[in-house]
């Protein structure tokens, strides 16, 4: 296994452009969420948190999909960069998913009258969170570098395949909660739709930016570690 030290963003310019683009989009998304989108009739102002809720859950989904794909590539190629990608993406995914749960709870309290309920979506989200927490624990406790990378890749693949099954089985007993923006939601105000799309795009870019930066730091750590004598 090579100790690749490649920078995911080889061109300084690209990093800068991405940074400013993300910054601008996030500011725009915040403004749209707070002022542009109309107030929802039934739920009132609290509904506005839903845009960021959707943004984080979307970006978390992207993050875990990246973990899944990178893990498959790691098992096939065994090059360190795929492992670094999977690990960094899992970390950021974990952060985004935690934000999703927090924003969801804030939204649920006034709307459903409870901070938490065991409906299929929430159950699945909860298990998703636990699965990737285990993924991070596994990484911290699994011996050598190669073994750590291999084990966590295997676990990530199985966990990702497991999720849809968890979702289906969680639906069996419990009632299905109302889906706010979904097929059959119907009659969404175009301004709401614009806000949602901008937020989703903003969070996607934010994820890419964070991922790139995290990988840069990780690569620096690895290079330092390799140079710090143990490599002899």
């Amino acid at each position, binding site marked *: 296994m090579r100790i690749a030290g490649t920078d995911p963003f080889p061109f300084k310019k690209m990093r800068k452009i991405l940074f400013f683009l993300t910054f601008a989009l996030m500011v725009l998304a915040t403004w749209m969420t707070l002022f542009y989108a109309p107030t929802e009739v039934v739920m009132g102002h609290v509904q506005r948190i839903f845009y960021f809720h959707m943004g984080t859950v979307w970006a978390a989904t992207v993050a875990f999909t990246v973990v899944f794909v990178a893990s498959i590539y790691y098992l096939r190629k065994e090059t360190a960069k795929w492992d670094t990608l999977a690990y960094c993406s899992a970390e950021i995914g974990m952060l985004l998913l935690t934000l999703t749960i927090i924003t969801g709870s804030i939204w649920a309290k006034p709307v459903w009258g409870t901070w938490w309920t065991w409906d299929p979506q929430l159950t699945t989200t909860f298990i998703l969170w636990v699965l990737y927490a285990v993924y991070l624990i596994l990484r911290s406790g699994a011996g*050598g570098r190669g073994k750590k990378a291999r084990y966590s890749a295997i676990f990530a*693949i199985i966990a990702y395949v*497991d999720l849809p099954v968890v979702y289906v089985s969680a639906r069996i007993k419990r009632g299905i909660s109302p889906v706010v923006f979904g097929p059959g939601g119907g009659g969404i105000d175009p301004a709401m739709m614009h806000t949602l799309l901008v937020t989703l795009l903003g969070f996607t870019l934010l994820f890419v930016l964070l991922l790139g930066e995290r990988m840069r730091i990780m690569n620096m750590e690895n290079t330092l570690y390799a140079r710090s004598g143990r490599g002899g």
Partner: protein
Amino acid sequence: MRKILLIFRKDFLVEWRSKQIFPTMFVFSLLLLLVFNVAFEFRSDINFRTVSAVVWITFIFSGLLALGRSFSLEKENNAFAFLLLTPVSRSYIYLGKLLSNVVMVLLSELFILPLFLLFFLFDAKGISLSLTGAVLPFLGVVVLGTIGFVSLGTFFSSMALNTKLRDMMLPLLVFPLIIPVVITSVGICSSILEGKPLDYYSFSLQVLVSFDIIFVLLCSLLFEYLIEDSGD
């Protein structure tokens, strides 16, 4: 197929002679039974859902504990390493081991089940009526659910052994993944005890069978990556 049976025969023989799974499972189950009984003070308000839940929690906890013990024995004198030198497909090694573990765990469960009957169900009203028609379906679900959790338990027992947390790691890895098995098995078992018709739980049954098929296949595919030694 012949090779899978060969590995099954060997694993079963080794397990039979070393007696790891059965005593561990049996004694641990008895303890759990006692704990549940003391904690819940079952008597008059017994309900089938709770009994099913207790049955499955007991099976899964004691089963995983025993699987962890069983694999550590095989690893001790490296006989497993020699098996890896032979030109046999890694999937067969997994499937043979899985088969042996399933049979062993099922045998233990067969001894544990009557105790449940003795301790819990005798107090329930009308149980003798519904049980006559329920025994075979109930055992069928036990088989399916056992395949479900043993498939992942067998797979991850070899991984857990190589991490710093060792035995502690196995439940961490397996529990979040087998949530669908818990939901469906407990659901179906309580439906059967309540005397519900097949239609009532057929969807759960489909989910459980799909889970078994998906994860037996996935694990046998990934087993090669799991056991291959990268050296560190």
